[in-house]
């Protein structure tokens, strides 16, 4: 490996070093406070190293990782989301019931998962795919069950463990089939290798798709999502919904582009059917929810259904649209869950997940309620919010790919979605207790917000409205990723075997 290789991997290295430091200082007194500073610092440094890595892009670092604009912009998205989650988790955990928890393990697990997510964005090889995915999933499971004295997080963690196991098994089987047919683990080489068993490759790709469907909680692989979203602490829910899913999307997009999987009918039609079912089903199921976190889970199923439209459209514009959609959705979801996690509805310190917690909230906490209403409008894709820009891209990708049926699903799903987002938004403004229960059941609000929490919320609101009104900076960024992903001439073409050998020497 040469110096440029290290430069290209700088974001990964920064995180890895931070993890090692975190492990080393864990035994020292006061390490919890040290970790509280180290985690955001590491994430910020990793973010800051992205432009440096971009200097070298596109660059294939070992046959496993391709550091190109696509990977770097996705990494940027993931790091920003992780930073927001890290700040949010400190603020939100402080108010949980019981003794104040130690968060240094939490932070370490978070950093590990982010490391896995970053590996996924650059993975061009089955090995890096599997390493990244496991590095992401295993810490996540511990994060979900972090408040281990409470039953719901434990249950959610267990469910996630089972689902992660099943999806990994499916994935391995699919990868094994592909490898058996083609004899290569390199994404781009799969398409080029002539094979006597094309059916194996197609079956393998469909199985990979199934595994991806589990991770992205697409219908019919969505059963875990509501329970995990509800059971996990709100910041972890935000992490599952944004970082983890964004990384898997990044990987799937690259895999399907490189292998040309969507050119053959079986993966194309199964993905289309999954997308359509998720858009409609996710929204319909969300209609029935009385728990806000479960509602967000079903809404997330629908949103990732929408996100499959750019994936199916593919190409430069597909990458751009997918990234823009993910960016818009991530900011919005983190914002919504930040309110859920920070709004202490009563003295027990539980999270605000019941419908009644939001009934008439605008009169008690106007700023928080206003912010939550903004997030809901953004989820619904109303103009002047970032969610609208995301929707613009989803629609544009559908039209670009001439996917009329999916476009119809997008319209129908969004219309159903409006209903429950608005119902919840209207509840915020309603007189307290008008619908659910007597007025005296409304608890007094417990605590105010800490300074980081206020800053976090303000930043999210500014991003949501600011980028909604003036999306050009975001578009410029995601567009760069799209063009770089498409125009990498020699880098994406594999190094010849002699070169491949040279890095081992």
């Amino acid at each position: 490996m040469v110096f440029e290789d290290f430069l290209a991997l700088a974001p990964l290295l920064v995180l890895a070093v931070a993890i090692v430091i975190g492990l080393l200082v864990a035994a020292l007194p006061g390490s919890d406070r040290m970790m509280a500073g180290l985690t955001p610092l590491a994430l910020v440094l990793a973010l800051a190293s992205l432009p440096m890595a971009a200097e070298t892009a596109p660059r294939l670092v070992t046959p496993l990782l391709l550091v190109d604009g696509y990977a770097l912009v996705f990494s940027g998205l993931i790091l920003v989301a992780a930073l927001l989650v890290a700040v949010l988790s400190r603020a939100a955990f402080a108010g949980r019931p019981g003794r104040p928890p130690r968060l240094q393990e939490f932070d370490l697990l978070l950093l590990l998962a982010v490391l896995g997510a970053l590996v996924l964005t650059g993975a061009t090889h089955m090995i890096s795919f599997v390493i990244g995915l496991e590095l992401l999933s295993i810490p996540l499971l511990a994060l979900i069950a972090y408040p281990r004295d409470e039953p719901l997080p434990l249950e959610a963690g267990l469910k996630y463990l089972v689902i992660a196991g099943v999806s990994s098994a499916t994935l391995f089987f699919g990868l094994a089939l592909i490898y058996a047919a083609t004899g290569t683990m390199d994404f781009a080489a799969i398409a080029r290798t002539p094979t006597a068993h094309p059916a194996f490759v197609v079956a393998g790709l469909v199985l990979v798709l199934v595994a991806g469907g589990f991770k992205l909680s697409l219908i019919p692989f969505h059963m875990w999502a509501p329970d995990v979203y509800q059971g996990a602490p709100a910041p972890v829910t935000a992490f599952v919904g944004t970082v983890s899913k964004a990384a898997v999307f990044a990987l799937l997009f690259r895999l399907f582009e490189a292998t040309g999987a969507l050119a053959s009918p079986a993966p194309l039609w199964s993905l289309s059917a999954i997308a359509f079912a998720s858009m409609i089903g996710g929204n319909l199921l969300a209609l029935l929810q009385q728990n806000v976190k479960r509602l967000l889970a079903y809404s997330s199923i629908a949103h990732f259904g929408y996100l499959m439209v750019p994936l199916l459209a593919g190409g430069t514009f597909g990458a751009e649209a997918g990234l823009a959609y993910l960016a818009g959705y991530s900011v919005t979801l983190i914002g919504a869950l930040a309110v859920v996690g920070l709004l202490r509805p009563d003295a027990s310190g539980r999270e605000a997940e019941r419908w009644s917690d939001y009934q008439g909230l605008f009169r008690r906490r106007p700023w928080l309620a206003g912010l939550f209403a903004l997030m809901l409008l953004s989820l619904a894709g109303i103009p002047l919010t970032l969610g609208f820009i995301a929707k613009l891209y989803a629609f544009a990708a559908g039209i670009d790919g001439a996917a009329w049926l999916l476009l119809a699903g997008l319209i129908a799903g969004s219309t159903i979605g409006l209903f429950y987002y608005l119902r919840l938004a209207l509840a915020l403004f309603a007189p307290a207790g008008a619908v659910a229960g007597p007025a005296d059941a409304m608890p007094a609000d417990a605590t105010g917000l800490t300074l980081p929490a206020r800053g976090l919320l303000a930043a999210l609101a500014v991003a949501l409205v600011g980028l909604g009104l003036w999306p050009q900076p975001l578009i410029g960024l995601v567009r760069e990723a799209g063009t770089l992903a498409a125009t990498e001439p020699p880098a994406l073409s594999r190094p010849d075997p002699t070169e491949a050998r040279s890095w081992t020497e």
Partner: protein
Amino acid sequence: MTLVWLIGLLLAGGVVAWGGERFGSAWPRSIAVTVMLIALVMVLGLWSGAATGVVTPGGPWIAHVEADWIPRFGIAFHFGADGLSLVLVVLTIILGFAAVIAANIDVKERVGFFHFNLLWTLAGAVGVFTALDLFLFFVFWEAMLIPMALIIALWGHEKRRAAALKFVLFTQGSGLLLFAAILALVFAHYGDTGLWTFDYLTLLAAEGSWPGNLWILLGFVIAFAVKLPMVPLHSWLPDAHTEAPTAGSVVLAGVLLKTGGYGLIRFTAPLFPEAAQLLAPYAMALGVFGILYGAVLAYAQSDFKRLVAYSSVSHMGFVLLGVFAATLWSLQGAVIQMLAHGLSTGGLFIMAGLLQHRLGTRDMQRFGGLWAGMPRLGALTLIFAVAALGLPGLANFVGEFLVLLGTWERSVWAAAFAALGMVGAVIYALALIQRTFHGAPHGNPGVRDLDPRAVGLLAVLVLLLAGLGLAPQPVLDTTAPALEALLRLSEPAILAGEVASHGL
């Protein structure tokens, strides 16, 4: 820049009115009145300077302003007003004024937030009428719905939340169709020319024959037809109008419905001439059906506001008919009809609000014999009702007459059946008066006539209706260049000379 300032004034005024609430509940109202006064001066100033404009294929544009917004897709802040936009903006401001004053009737709590929503709705409507970029148009189109829905949901009557949700679902759902259609149009244009643009004038100038034209047009038409509303897409309207507070009903009926008519005139036929011609017979048939259906259903209502709401369905049928008949007379008629309907229905909804405030009900079965106790209120209601039924000398007559005249050349049958709608209007409008003010008194305790100040304010609406009815020529002159330009663009099959010979 005047248009940008106008929209900015309404937006900023809304925020200030909301903030003003903390100094007392009278403040938001005073602030809103001031804002509307300034806005009125601004639009009248615009009108007086209407002759000077930038001339393009779409027509002469005044207060034209353009700046980059999202260059990636060729989206721009592009505003401009021609005669058509201008008269509708004037209507918006006048009815906005009426709504701010009418808000006093039944909005008693969270006054600041109410005025915020009201002014933002008006800002959205002004934006819709003046945006010359399709993306910008859509942003305003969607953005004005949320404050309107909040007005219905928070300050409305008994079934307000259901009505608000229904309103949003219908309009936003169809709005998504519009969005898809706009994007499809832009992508088709991009495919042809390699140029990203949402600019109305550029797309207008392009050769309008893309594959799937009819489908794209349908997306536009359905979105506008829901808003107009066209039967059978009207079912949100009676609920929304009935449940909204008085000021909300005034803006909803007076301004928001007009955005649908405006969209049809501005975008459908000029952008897709051939496809629009294919669609025209069906749209005209639905327009005629809506006229008759709305009239019949209006007669059957016992709720004062519901009756007025169904009469809107009937009146807007004339607009649909006039737009798709696509002659200069019918288009002129459609525009006058929109203005007249805004004024007369706005007036009727204010009357409904006053009655409900006094008597605590909108049920006409519990009204009756009210004339004796409130002659002034009764007389004003009578004037608005006869305006609605199309009495010559008041504005609605001019609109309906011109629509029928213009339609006659296209289809005698359509004109003949539509004319029956004017008979229907006489029946339901007089039934409204008879059930409410005549007959045996029910001994209502709340009977109290209008004070002179209220009469004076409502007299302004009456004067406008009479002025538009007796001397419509200034308005016709203002809209004529714009409508002629749109007509030229939308009728390639028809000789340009024929259009010219219809000049008024």
